[in-house]
């Protein structure tokens, strides 16, 4: 019985996803576009935390740096969209490499603290270097009308459907890539590192290098996510690279089920929509975010996926007997 439920749910979700812009209004489409970009962000993080078991608290740094790279390219350097996007992605990858390089030089817990240090440092610099980053207000992307392909323009902030489908396409591509990546030899090695790092070391794998590698790959995808998110919002701000966001993506990944790829993606989409709704209700939404983080850790460490999985299994057992 439960073997039919999951594909059915998936099919329903896909249909809803495809029809969303027609079911909701412009604002809803825009919200969903942004949420999907955050979903892509969480998907990339799952490669780091869920697949390789690395607790990095600097992933939002890569997300934000990617977006800022693109924004600075377009506004300050006067470059076109594609070169700017490439700049953003390259910057995210370089940052990912640098963080990884130093973080792997410390022992286990030091890794976490090193990523925290880097994330905080970048956030502080971004806060202070307002001439570059625009501080709290950020950099407005004067044109969210992007020359995507010759002759094809995309409007992002207008809540346009073409933008929505572009993001959906990117998410789908990234998901396929990630699945392939995880199943590949490289992915196998990473999962081996997560399972038993000492054994991987004993077998001769240069574990440090693999960790840096996955951070860079995930960083590239996070950079893309950052670019898409910034385009859909119409601006980049330092909120995109806050430690808070790095922590939130960890919570989304845990909630969705680390390593499942799809779980963190869905969790991120739902949670970010929820947070946006919450923000419109109260200015104390950060308090709620803190409380939710705490509660998820205490009560749902395996994530909702684990709980739902257990419920489905129990239902399956009952129908069998």
């Amino acid at each position: 019985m439960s073997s039919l439920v999951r594909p059915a749910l998936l099919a329903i979700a896909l249909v809803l996803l495809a029809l969303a812009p027609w079911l909701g209004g412009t604002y809803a489409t825009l919200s969903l576009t942004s949420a999907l970009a955050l979903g892509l962000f969480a998907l990339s993080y799952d490669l780091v935390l869920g697949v390789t078991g690395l607790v990095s608290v600097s992933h939002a740094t890569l997300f934000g740096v990617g977006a800022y790279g693109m924004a600075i390219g377009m506004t300050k350097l006067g470059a076109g969209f594609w070169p700017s996007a490439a700049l953003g992605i390259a910057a995210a990858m370089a940052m990912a490499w640098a963080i990884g390089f130093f973080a792997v030089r410390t022992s286990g817990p030091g890794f976490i603290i090193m990523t925290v240090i880097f994330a905080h440092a970048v956030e502080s610099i971004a806060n202070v270097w307002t001439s570059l980053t625009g501080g709290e207000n950020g950099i407005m992307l004067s044109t969210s009308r992007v020359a995507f392909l010759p002759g094809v323009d995309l409007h992002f902030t207008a809540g346009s459907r073409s933008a929505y489908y572009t993001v959906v396409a990117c998410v789908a591509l990234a998901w396929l890539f990630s699945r392939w990546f995880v199943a590949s030899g490289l992915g196998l090695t990473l999962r081996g590192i997560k399972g038993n790092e000492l054994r991987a070391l004993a077998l001769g794998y240069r574990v440090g290098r693999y960790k840096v590698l996955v951070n860079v790959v995930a960083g590239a995808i996070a950079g893309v996510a950052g670019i898409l998110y910034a385009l859909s919002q119409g601006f980049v701000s330092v909120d995109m690279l806050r430690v808070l966001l790095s922590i939130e993506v960890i919570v989304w990944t845990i909630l969705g089920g680390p390593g499942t790829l799809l779980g963190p993606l869905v969790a991120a989409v739902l949670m970010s929509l929820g947070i946006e709704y919450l923000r419109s209700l109260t200015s104390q939404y950060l308090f709620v975010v803190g409380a939710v983080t705490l509660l998820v850790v205490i009560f749902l460490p395996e994530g909702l996926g684990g709980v739902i999985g257990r419920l489905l299994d129990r239902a399956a057992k009952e129908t069998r007997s």
Partner: protein
Amino acid sequence: MTADVLVLQLANGLSFGVIFALIASGITLMWGIMDFINMAHGDFYMLGAYGIWLGLVIGIGSFWLALPLAVLGVVVIGLLLRVSVLRPIFDRPPLHTLLATYGAGLMLQQAVLSIFGPFSKEIALPVTGQIVLGPLRYPAYRVVVIVVGLVLIAAVGVLIQRSTYGLWIRAVAQDRAMTAALGVPVPRVYTVVFALGSGLAALGGVLAAPLFGVSPTMGGEVILLAFIVVMIGGLGNYLGSVVGGVLIGEVIALGAIWLQPTVAYLVALGLLLVLLLVRPAGLLRSAR
């Protein structure tokens, strides 16, 4: 730049350094003994500052009388946190305690924000005037900060070396399972370490309050540097965090002569990165 300015900044660096050392030694004790990453540590510092402000506002006339009360108040909050939130996740991996303490810290910050408002509060210097040494004049309060801070750091150090709980703290840091197998009540040792760590952070906040003001985000501002200090001094190394704290304090103060504060932060980070390349285990050999 004259010698006067240099000496002045060296002294400033020492006063920053003492405050960083207080915060960092709390982090390193909790990490080294309990494998515990406390993301709310900066908020204990912040609560200490609010504690002293509150104490003075209520009408406890003397700063020095309100100080131990403020510290005690924060320790109580910390222990409540430990009992309610941290006990259930006692044996979980560091990721979970990281998230839980972050969540708790965020809640504390937001609570303080909504109760006391976002604006920075001022506290009058409890000791005014300057200390004069020949051609040099230095604010008396800063000297007091340095002295009080160093005395307390030394006192804790002695406690760790001489007292029974200090012995147990060191034993747990070296081999937790064996310490338990010898009958030592490890959870109680953890509680002591937690109280000690949060108390030190709170003390740092109290001492810092007249110098830097009291605001809900002051914890976030220092926590980055505190973590850098901990990494430089070596995770779990008490002496290392003290030395590292003073070192970073001096780097920032001296850096401030020529550079902006954020750039000074960068220098501290750069120092850490260089050290990591050269000596991954931290500045000092494990002097447990």
